[in-house]
Structure formats: C-alpha cells, structure tokens
C-alpha cells in the first residue's frame, strides 16, 4: 500500500517536473524573452546571476599565487599603459563618470576608478580575483578573456595598476598611462 502511494507521488513529481521543463523550453523557443541590453533583468534574475558570478570567481581564484613584487613602479607603468589601451573605455578613467560603453552595456561595467564600498576584501583576494577575471573574462557580460593573447605577467601588471587606480588623480593617471620614454627602459 505504501509502495503504491510512493509510486503515485513519484509519478506526480515527474509529471510536474516534465511540465516545468516543457514550459521552459516553450518559453525559450517562443522568442518572447527580451534580449535587448536596454531591457533590465528582474531583481531576482539579477541577484541570481550576480551571486553565480561572484561565487564562481571566488572559488576559481582562491588558489592563485600573487607575485610578491606586485607593487613595484615598473608594473604600474606597464599596467597603466595597458589599462588605457584595453580597459579605460569600459572601466573609465579618474574624473570621468561614464562613456558610451558604460551607458550601453548591460550589466554596466564597474567603474574601477572608484573604491567599491561593498568589496572590503583583503588586497590579496582582490588581486587574485582581478587576475582571474582579466585572464578568463566573464560570459555574456562584454568582459573578454584577455588571457588568450596576453601573458600572465602582462595581466599581473594590469592587476598592480588596478589596485592603485582608485587613489590616482587625473594628472597621475595621465602620466602613468601615457606613452613615455621610460617604457623602453622598463620593457
């Protein structure tokens, strides 16, 4: 008797699950999902995607070894030049609050010239996560995987620069990121 009840219950769950899967597939194929970047996610979707991203990056980056010489001037110079060429369009420069990319991309790329109050993580953790994100990119966000064409050293230079970027004045940023005769000395 109890096994019959169990079977009925199992059939019921299997039916409901099947309907949910079919409904999901129906929605995907219907074309009703608003795909435009100017159509925002619901709060629940945004939370789910953000949590998925943060947890995934945190787990993947936890064992990355950070170079001991991350804060040397040569890294800041090389990283500054690369930041201006590769990142500034989306992640901005000191005293600039938006660009065509920040206005148009969704999710909006973070402004890396600002200190993010919600991210009071230790510098070493931040360095690991920056490195992982730059190297591997983030799916469906506009963030490319720069590791495909860049060495780890180039990426660490960027990380070194990013860690000091929120403290830089526009004048300091300009000097560090512009082309200079010292670059040949450093390369």
């Amino acid at each position, binding site marked *: 008797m109890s096994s019959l009840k169990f079977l009925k219950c199992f059939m019921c769950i299997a039916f409901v699950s099947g309907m949910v899967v079919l409904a999901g597939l129906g929605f995907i194929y219907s074309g009703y999902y608003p795909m435009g970047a100017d159509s925002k996610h619901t709060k629940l979707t945004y939370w789910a995607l953000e949590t998925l991203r943060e947890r995934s990056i945190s787990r993947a980056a936890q064992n990355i070894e950070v170079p001991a010489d991350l*804060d*040397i*001037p*040569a890294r*800041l*110079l*090389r990283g*500054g*030049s*690369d930041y*201006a*060429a*590769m990142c500034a369009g989306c992640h901005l420069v000191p005293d600039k609050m938006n660009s065509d990319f920040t206005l148009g991309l969704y999710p909006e790329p973070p402004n890396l010239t600002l200190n993010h109050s919600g991210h009071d993580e230790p510098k070493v953790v931040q360095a690991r996560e920056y490195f992982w994100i730059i190297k591997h990119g983030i799916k469906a966000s506009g963030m490319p995987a720069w590791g495909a*064409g*860049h060495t780890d050293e*180039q990426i660490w230079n960027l990380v070194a620069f990013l860690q*000091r970027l929120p*403290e*830089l004045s526009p*004048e*300091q940023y*300009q*000097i*560090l*990121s*512009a*082309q*200079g*005769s*010292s*670059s040949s*000395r*450093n*390369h």
Partner: protein
Amino acid sequence: MKRQFLSYFVALPALMLALSAQAHSPEEHINKGQAPNCAAMKDMDHSKIDMNDPVMQAMMQKCMPQDEAASEDGHPSHDMEADAYKPAEHQH
C-alpha cells in the same frame, strides 16, 4: 585543386595565428595618442609627496628621461621637478 585547398587550409590558420600575435604585442598597448604631461607634477603639493610610494616612483621614472633629454639638448631641466625628486627631509 586539391593542393590549392590544402594550401588554404594551412595558410589561413597560420595567418590568423600571426595576426593574433601581432595584435597583442606590448607595443600595441602603448597609448600612442598622448605623451605624459610631466608639467602637472609641478602643481602637486610637495609636502604630501611620499618618495617611497610606488606611484610617485613610477611617475618619476616616466618623467625623468624627458628631463634628462632636455638637459642634453641644452635646456635646463625643471628645478621644481628636480626638487620634487629629492627625498623630503621629514622622511629621514
């Protein structure tokens, strides 16, 4: 015909590999549009300059060669910047 197809098959990936290597050479990343505005260092509050700060050291590395070059050309280097590069006395 078959040979031509094979040559495309080999040449195309080789070309793409070469182009991708070119596109990511460090020189490609140098901000070629602007020279460093080292004159801005004059306006900085020198009492707040920390010579041990890697940012300041990096800025000096960037700007010093320009000053050296200017001196070689017979033009005096900026005294103000030269002063800025001296370690502040209170740091000793």
